[in-house]
């Protein structure tokens, strides 16, 4: 298995946290096509870990390598390029832009890369169709249900065909039925070849949809509680 993500000895201290590290020597590998769940108590550093992988923030020390390239020391511009080419982000609170339609939200990452309009439209149409919200394309996020909003966030994360999906509590704001749907969606995406890192509080979600669960407490990994011997991917 060749690792898509490689963290070695990553430490992250926030300036205002008087020396306490949010991440304290985290080393981690995620293989291509793997689906990894990250669990841990609140404040343990899960979101911080995702931010490191997405190059949304820089580690205090240690290296982060994604697809063979260091991403821990990228310039803001290079980080932005890296994110829009390789990373799809999904958040707990969707983070949709309220003053744009569903379609415009989904198209945005493609437009930022300068993808030809026709290509971007075709992809957005396909994605919205697959996710069952094509007929909601002209609606505004405020009018959508939580589950629908999260699907829009998925479509937006996928429009640039990233190989890596990072989800930070994607079902946290949803009821269990909607959470179920989102879980199915994640599994399908992983089956389709997307590597996935999923932060969740739900052991059920982790056990059903991830091939491996990593526990983190006070910024340190405490070992995978359910290591999968095989490559870990359902195929």
């Amino acid at each position, binding site marked *: 298995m060749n690792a898509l993500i490689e963290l070695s000895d990553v430490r992250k201290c926030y300036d205002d946290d008087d020396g306490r590290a949010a991440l304290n020597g985290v080393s981690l590998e995620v293989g291509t096509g793997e689906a990894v769940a990250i669990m841990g108590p609140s404040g343990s550093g899960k979101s911080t870990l995702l931010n490191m992988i997405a190059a949304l*923030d820089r580690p205090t020390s240690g290296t982060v390598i994604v697809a063979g390239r260091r991403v821990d020391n990228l310039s803001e511009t290079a980080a*932005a390029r890296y994110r829009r080419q390789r990373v799809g982000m999904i958040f707990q609170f969707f*983070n949709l832009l309220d*003053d*744009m339609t569903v379609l415009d939200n989904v198209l945005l990452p493609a*437009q*930022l890369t300068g993808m030809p309009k026709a290509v971007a439209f075709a992809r957005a149409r396909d994605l919205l169709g697959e996710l069952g919200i094509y007929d909601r394309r002209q609606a505004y996020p405020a009018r959508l249900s939580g589950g629908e909003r999260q699907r829009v966030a998925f479509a937006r994360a996928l429009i640039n065909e990233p190989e890596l999906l990072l989800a930070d509590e994607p079902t946290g704001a949803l009821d269990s039925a909607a959470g179920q749907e989102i879980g199915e969606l994640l599994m399908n995406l992983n089956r389709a070849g997307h590597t996935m890192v999923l932060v969740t509080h739900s052991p059920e979600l982790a056990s059903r949809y991830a091939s491996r669960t990593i526990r983190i407490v006070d910024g340190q990994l405490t070992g995978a509680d359910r290591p999968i011997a095989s490559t870990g991917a359902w195929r």
Partner: protein
Amino acid sequence: MRARPVLRAAAGGVSRRRVQTVVIFTVLLVSTAAATLGLGLLAAAAGPFQQAFAAQHGAHVTMAFDTGRATRAQLIATGRARGVIQSAGPFPMADAGLTGAATGSLGSLALVGRTSSGGPLDDLTLQSGRWVRRPGEVVLSSGVAWDALLGSTFTASTAPGAPKLTVVGIAASATDSADGWVVPAEVHALRAAGAPATAQMMYRFASAGSDAQIRADVAAITAALPAGAVAGSASWLAAQQLAQGTGAIIAPFVVAFGIMGLAVSVLVVINVVSGAVAASYRRIGVLKSIGFSPGQVIAAYVARVGVPAAAGCALGVGLGNGLAVPVLRRSAEAFSGASRSVPVWVDVVTPLAMLAMAGLAALLPALRAGRLPAVAAIATGQAPRPGRGQAAHRVLSGLRLPRPVTIGLAAPFARPARTTVTLTAVALGAAAVIFAAGLETSVARVTTDRSHVNPGEVSLWLANGGNLRPDGAQARKAVAAIRSQPGTLHYVAESTLSITASGLPGQVNAHLFGGDTGWVGMDMISGRWYRAADEVDVNSAFLSRAGLALGDHVTLVSGGRQFTARIAGEVFDPAGGQPVLFAGSQALGGSGLPIFQYDVGLRPGTDPGTYATALNQALGSQFSAGTNEAGGKFQQIITALIGLLTLMMAVAAGLGVLNTVLLGTRERVHDLGVFKALGMTPRQTITMVVNWVTGPAAAGALLAVPLGIVLHWAIIRAMGRAADTGVPADVAHVYTPAELALFALSALVIAAAGALGPANWAARSRSAAALRTE
């Protein structure tokens, strides 16, 4: 004790918004300074005249009559004409040329016979000496005499027998009703042979507040008398204009700047406070949920503005006073008795008024915060209400522009109020710059325009200031020297005389040219330069005071002789104030007039300084040649003032824009985080944020063009009125389309530059932190 949490809440807000605090401070500093300056100049200029006018019970209109055409009884009867509430006179009048052995000529003076300095009207202030008691004594007006003349004796050289007059006193009339006073019995003996007998009457009218009312009042008097009886009239408004001088000329544009500064500061304060309220709905909710009353919340947000605003107002008063000093000193020199400092009431009222405005501006959005229910406040959060910008997004995303640009352009629609502020700030700032640039051009043109002050580039005169006999040896020597200079292109002899003109009390300066003056090319407001021997040109003050128009005939009296001339043109006379006349020397009896100076026009490329030096060397110490340099002290002050006020306005407007963008970035910090998480590069982020302002700024810049032009047009005219002159076309119309386009464009660029700071901040900030801000 209950005030403490309020203050702490407010202080927390201020320290966390340092830039906004600086913006409020600076904007109020600038506008308070402009307002103090403007009001100070107005008050200092208006004060002395009004005091003197009230104390002396000044006459609204002073009129001269030909007593050959109206009897004394008829004149007294005019006191019962329509509109008259009080009258004085008739007092006999005479024009006499006074020459002193030591002092030289005082020119032709209008002397009035009065038995006392007091009276129901024009109760003169005796500044020194005493009133006239017997023939042979004269009290001179402070307008023509100075204290050292007290006791000296003059000869009335124009009167038959050349009687002698001793100066026994110096008196001031607010309306300058005469140049001097004698006992009534002596007036007859002072008249030149053949000069008509005249008398003076003074009136107060029920309504005399405007030129139009004065004209109607004068018409009523004229109608009550036989035809041709009125020889002239003078309005108190003209005297007031003259007295207010420099301050009055500067006042229109200073006031314009003051009002624009006020508008910008009110906008900025509203903007900052409503922004602070909108950005901290959640904070308000929390404050309320822990027991803050609505009043305390309002107080907290008004206090946020109060401290920097008060500091800005206080320092602004100081700055305004500092700026007013050189201007006031100058006007005090021009008008003795004018105040040299800004009146105290201005220093008190201006900052209080500005502070009250700021407080009121803060109160409106703060009231909204006070009324907001706690739960709603917490739930509303800080995002702008969705829905507003949606249509704009839809339209703009269809454009073939990069996405960051269209997102940026759509943003203003989500916040119409704030967008209006940006637009207005840019419009006002750019209009101020356009207006000021135009004003600079106008002032520069006024300075370089040919006028009686400098008809040529170099002037040559006798070193002792005396006159040359036109056919004398000295004149021949001067002409020969001028002709032999290679730089000479044109030259003309100029005589300067004091004469009297029908319809005008007192004396008029006449500039008479002996030779071709086509090259002088003075700037005309209307009509044309004189051509025939019986044609003259006059300035605006001449026309307005005498109530004459182009084409009218005017009777001129010089050296006891009468001449009739037609007014061919209105000459632009930037010095204004006093009636001036220009003509060929034939208009006053031919070429025998004494020459005061020669005016020389130079060949292109000749340096005036070098030329004057060469002429001085050629002629020796008897003569003096000098250059007529453009731009006096007054122009320098105006130019500096315009530059300063423009800079202040541009800074205030720029800060307004910066502040708006800053509020936007703070408020959208979360959205910015989302954009960046989706792969927006710093450059794209900057592009987007800068485009928040390009739309409103472009609209503002477009609006600024007509606004600036209209403002310039109105202010130039107001300044002209204050200076008692019309405005020639080249001074009134100064803009070219290319310049205006450039101004509009640069306003856009400056607004974008103002947005760059916050945009950079937005681009640099880490999105991880931004996304945490829920």
